[in-house]
């Protein structure tokens, strides 16, 4: 078994949007839509301000509400790495999965089906990193198998403090942000 995850070092991310452009190029994402994006979160007030820049996308949750609510089984968990994928042919465009996602990570493709990040599963199955990870100029993004205790993502999570997004939503996200 494997469980793919992404670890993103927020102390290295500069919000350059290279990951966004790489995703659009690799996956042919339609203009005006994004499978990944940059979030900038500011906490506090001057002079004690903390800024966190994050590259965000579908969190490939372990308990994905988008899969449970899908009436046709179009949203499903891929056998390799637990990645959440959408079968375009089965999708009816009901948008239930968009309502179910607390991260607003999905959108409706102009052709009518629900679309989102796939962790570039077509690249991963060839032994490559997702496009966003492979182009990051600051090497702040790491991809790997969470079930492999020797993987880079496991080692980073064991050695650095981190957080996930909206863990209280109960979705068990698999993207972690090093702080």
């Amino acid at each position: 078994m494997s469980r793919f995850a992404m670890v993103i070092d927020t102390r290295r991310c500069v919000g350059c949007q290279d990951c966004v452009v790489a995703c659009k190029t690799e996956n042919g994402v339609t203009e005006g839509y994004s499978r990944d994006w940059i979030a900038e979160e500011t906490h506090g007030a001057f002079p004690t301000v903390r800024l966190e820049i994050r590259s965000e996308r579908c969190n490939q949750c372990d308990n994905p509400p988008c899969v449970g609510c899908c009436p046709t089984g179009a949203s499903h968990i891929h056998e390799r790495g637990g990645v959440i994928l959408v079968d375009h042919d089965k999708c009816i465009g009901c948008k239930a999965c968009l309502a179910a996602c607390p991260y607003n990570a999905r959108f409706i493709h102009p052709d009518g089906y629900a679309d989102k990040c796939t962790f570039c599963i077509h690249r991963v199955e060839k032994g490559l990193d997702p496009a966003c990870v492979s182009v990051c100029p600051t090497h702040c993004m790491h991809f790997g198998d969470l079930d492999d205790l020797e993987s880079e993502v496991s080692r980073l999570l064991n050695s650095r403090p981190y957080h996930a997004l909206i863990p209280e939503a109960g979705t068990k996200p698999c993207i972690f942000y090093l702080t």
Partner: protein
Amino acid sequence: MTPFAELTVSRHNPLVDPTLHIWGWQIAVYLFLGGLVAGLMIIAGVRLIAIRPKQREALVCCTIGSIAGLAFLSLGMFALFLDLAHKFHVWRLYTTFQITSPMSWGSWILLLVYPALAANALAHLPEAIPALARRFPVTVVWSDFILAREWLVVAIGIANMFVGIALGIYTGILLSTFGARPLWNSAILGPLFLLSGLSTAAATLHGILLLTTPDEERPAFADFLLSSLARLVEAHPLDTKVGPVLAGADSSFLTIEAALLGLFVIGQTTSTAVHQQAASLLLGGPYTAVFWVFVIGMGIVLPLILQTLELGKRIRHTLAPAVLVVLGGLALRFVLVYACQQSHWLEALNH
């Protein structure tokens, strides 16, 4: 000092940003008509089992209500179809059953509604609408077949009640299972939508009954409406006591609905910060006026007052309360569909 947090996101996905707005009038109308049909089924089922010969109200509930239910359901499903983004893949709903998906449950329940309503409509069709029976004599054969078997009449009535309850609750559960939208995430929505469906169904049947009253007994308010519909049932004697019975039932449904709405608001305001923030959309936010004026005021309180006065014979019996109840039910779906999409988790304050 209060902690300050600000979140800026570079994403601009249509229907998702700046706030989710994936569902519009189509879903609100679908949920309203689904609830209305659920109520019509439950009332029709009860009346089919408890029907007495020549009782006009029962004929309206069983036959006209069921036929109206078939029409409303078809309209609702058409509205749902309009909302789908991948329309020509809609048949995929019926190639699988996803046990965790309320929408999958709903799509199969909707298939059960048609035969249940059709059977209920057929049972007394020749008696309720003789003109139709004369035009289609086969309906008389079907009606005789059903009425000759008491067990079948009871089975059809029970089937309508059970499928109606399932349909009514499903329309609420569909929304309440979306944990990502805190305002929807309340188990109260199932029974709330069921009761709202019952009240709008009682009001609709009450309206049909008033509109089909013979001329000499028709209230002035309804004079100008649908006289042709009245001719369909004019051969039957009018039971003048049945209108108040439906009005009384409607008042009961409205009272329970008001209590459930109260519980819904209490549940939200006493829950977590995200639920409290979500509730503020209805209690001091952009949907407050619509919610309190159209859903609570004109949709529940005013018709309750009017119907109480009517039942006490203090004012004239009119269509006004029934129309208000139906519009209030529609407003409830619009408010909950639109407001709840704006409720979300406080991502910026999590860590």
